[in-house]
């Protein structure tokens, strides 16, 4: 970051309006998400008022594009990320896997992965392929993606609906034909 020359910095700053204009490219994909701010309007105006109270003060401002200072290659800000809560492993009863919000990058169309024909080692040309960023809330994740200038798609999580279950249902009497034979 410190090695950036003043010419490069000027070039980056000159690119900033373009980067900002590029931001909403995929925004309209966001699912039922009124709280993801559109860069055209102020974020707090488009967010629901109840949420706006909880939003960190820094998040209520227009994010500063990180590429101004970070030295990240321009190609990075063209990438699309997905913001989601990772699903629980269906094989296990643990529930903590989906407590966090995650950002990861959409795979590139070509050169994402290949394997070494002799040993089967996996390689990738994409430095962002193994990147996983975890956040405590959706707003944090969205803000981070905005700051980095990444197109983002928010995938809303689905949760189990808790319906009352009872042991006694195994023995409830029902008139007529029994619908199921218990072979346990």
């Amino acid at each position, binding site marked *: 970051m410190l090695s950036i020359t003043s010419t490069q910095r000027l070039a980056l700053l000159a690119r900033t309006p373009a980067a900002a204009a590029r931001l*909403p*490219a*995929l*925004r*309209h*994909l966001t*699912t*039922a998400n*009124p709280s993801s701010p*559109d860069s*055209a309007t102020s974020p707090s105006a488009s967010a629901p008022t109840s949420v706006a109270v909880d939003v960190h003060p820094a998040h209520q401002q227009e994010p500063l594009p990180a590429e101004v200072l970070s030295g990240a290659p321009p190609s990075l800000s063209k990438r699309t990320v*997905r913001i989601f809560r*990772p*699903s*629980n*492993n*269906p*094989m*296990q*009863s*643990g*529930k*903590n896997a989906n407590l966090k919000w995650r950002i990861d990058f*959409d*795979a*590139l*169309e*070509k*050169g*994402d*992965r*290949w*394997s070494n024909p002799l040993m*089967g080692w*996996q390689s990738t040309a994409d430095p962002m392929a193994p990147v996983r960023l975890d956040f405590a809330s959706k707003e944090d994740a969205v803000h981070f993606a905005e700051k980095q200038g990444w*197109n983002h*798609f928010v*995938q*809303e999580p*689905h*949760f*189990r*609906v*808790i*319906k*009352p*279950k*009872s*042991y006694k*249902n*195994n023995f409830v009497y*029902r008139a*007529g*034909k029994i*619908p*199921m*034979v*218990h*072979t*346990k």
Partner: protein
Amino acid sequence: MMLKAAAHRAAMLGRGAAHVSARGLRSSAQARKEIEMFIDGKAVQIEEGSAIIQAAEKAGVTIPRFCYHERLGVAGNCRMCLVEIEKSPKMAASCAMPVGPGMRVLTDTPKIKQAREGVMEFLLANHPLDCPVCDQGGECDLQDQSMRYGGDRGRFGESKRAVEDKDIGPLVRTTMTRCIHCTRCVRFINEVAGTGELGTTGRGNDMQIGTYVARPLTSELSGNIVDLCPVGALTSKPYAFSARPWELKNTESIDVMDALGSNIRVDSRGEEVLRVVPRTNDAINEEWISDKARFANDGLKRQRLTTPLVRVGDAFEAATWADALALVAERLRGARPEHVHAVAGALADAEALVALKDLINAVGSENLAVDAAGCGAPAAGVDVRANYTFNATVAGVEAADAVLLIGTNPRHEAPVLNARLRKPFLAGTAQYALVGEAADLTYDYAHVGTTAAAIDALAEGRHAFAATLRAAKRPLVIVGSAVGELSNGADVMAAVARLAASVPALVGDAWNGLSVLQHAAGRTAALDIGFVPNARSTGAEAAEFVYLLGADGDGAAQPGAIPAGAFVVYQGHHGDAGAHLADVILPGSAYTEKTATYVNTEGRAQLTRRAVNAPGAARDDWKIVRALSEAAGLTLPYDDVGALRARMADVCPTLVHVDECEATSAAVAALGLTQMLAGGRGKAEGPLARAVGDYYMTDAISRASRTMARASASAAKARSSGLIPELEAPAQQAAA
């Protein structure tokens, strides 16, 4: 265009939200009294009658368990979930103990710790120490819980019990010595799958899980017992010894093997998809997926089209993209516009469909069709969306109290939906009837008749079930997609409209029970986009140029339907039936290799996500069409997927409202019924075809899959040996 799309979205969102709340009211169970109780001092409000373990889940307290599962009946036999209740002398199994008002439960006391260690020690006494060679290793509840809750030493010095492995078919591998007798698999097969093949024999140390008589499982949902098994007793046979969970890249995506759009997680290593597992979505698949969704992934490695191919004489020769596209563009411009045709296949995604429709329209042709039998469009038309979507919604079927199936076998067309249809049967809240070929549906039904004439018998009240349907508060009529594709489909759909008119509660604002069950994942999107012939279309007899977008000859792309002189382009991912008809093959991507929109049978748009790259020179489907448009000098006005989705929002806003299911209003649905009624020309009669013949082989991917071939052969063998009962209706009733 962006602003317009955004404003439109806001308008649509508002409507969607209102609709969602209406739907929530409709399908929720009757609310019971909420009580307050305390788990480890945390207050939690929960419905009366719930189990303590559910209250703990709500409070965010983890209770270890093996036998308890949220979607199965309570067994209470593993004893791992023991908790202490204040003022109660003994510990209680929290899965089997109902909550009480003011109850104070402790889950973290020295007594509980000791009890859990005791349970773990007993379970491990007879569990083999073969974790290094067990496929469950790394995602095993027994492994994790013995680390977290078990003791640090065992006292068992005797020899361990050993049980012979069972052969239960080509999908599920058994190592019965590892079984801890939680009976989740037995309960799943009994309650959800409904085939009742698994059971237990013996007691105590001699207890065994098995099929009594050696036989394969015949359920289309059998793969779910692999997920349910908390240990490594039941594992996936095709995936055996392939990978460890920590090597896999997880990609959350959508299944396309049926039109339900089940939520899945695609697990890949490098360039290979190794397995598919379900994700929880209570609105669609709960947490089950069908065997085809789970096991057909090996078809993604076979019969793939990896490079553009051009037919030279009787053989295909590899070509570069530039040459292939130039050739296709030349033939496209050379053909007379009114004789250019395009056919959308079963697995086509919405992006590619919109791009292809734009291209064909730019050429000056209106000859668009879906790859369905008959005329290439459903008989009920596509003007009203309610005429081709599953209006009751997948979750809504649980609330139905009278179900009529017309020309469909949901067990094969959408096995996960069939498991939901079974729920009201188990609860005793619904009655069922079927018009069409008899099938073993896992619930009892009245067989009204095999021909379409039975629909009119019901409409005119000449069958006992007509009274049930009319008296129902939430009647559900499921019409198979094959019905609208019959040669006399319009007549049959008119009879369905007459039936709908005779059932007062069927179509309304709060409940629309008249539902069409599609069987192809790409079909609803194709109909939304308008991939159907219109007044300006010409017949396929004189076609000069035919573009098959993954169309594999199920209907409009049948070999006989395309004239010999036509130039045929096939764009798709597998060298299946459609590719053999082609003059030029353009390799596209399968659903695991692209981020694309699919609309499920309810009309819910969902996005897949690229897990691996397409092989060789294959490309994203919409990009191929876009490149072709440029080669043909008809450049389509979108350069990236964002611009294409803005165009999709213009064509059909629901395509970009991801995860939303928008209902048609009752007034518009009634208009659709009028249209259906007006389409009829004669009496509805003749047999009703089914959309799916062999469940395991329905599309290019499953036909290329070795696992599906084995499963198909196993099912055929079971049928010929009498293990699968003959398809007779359980309660046969002739139309009066």
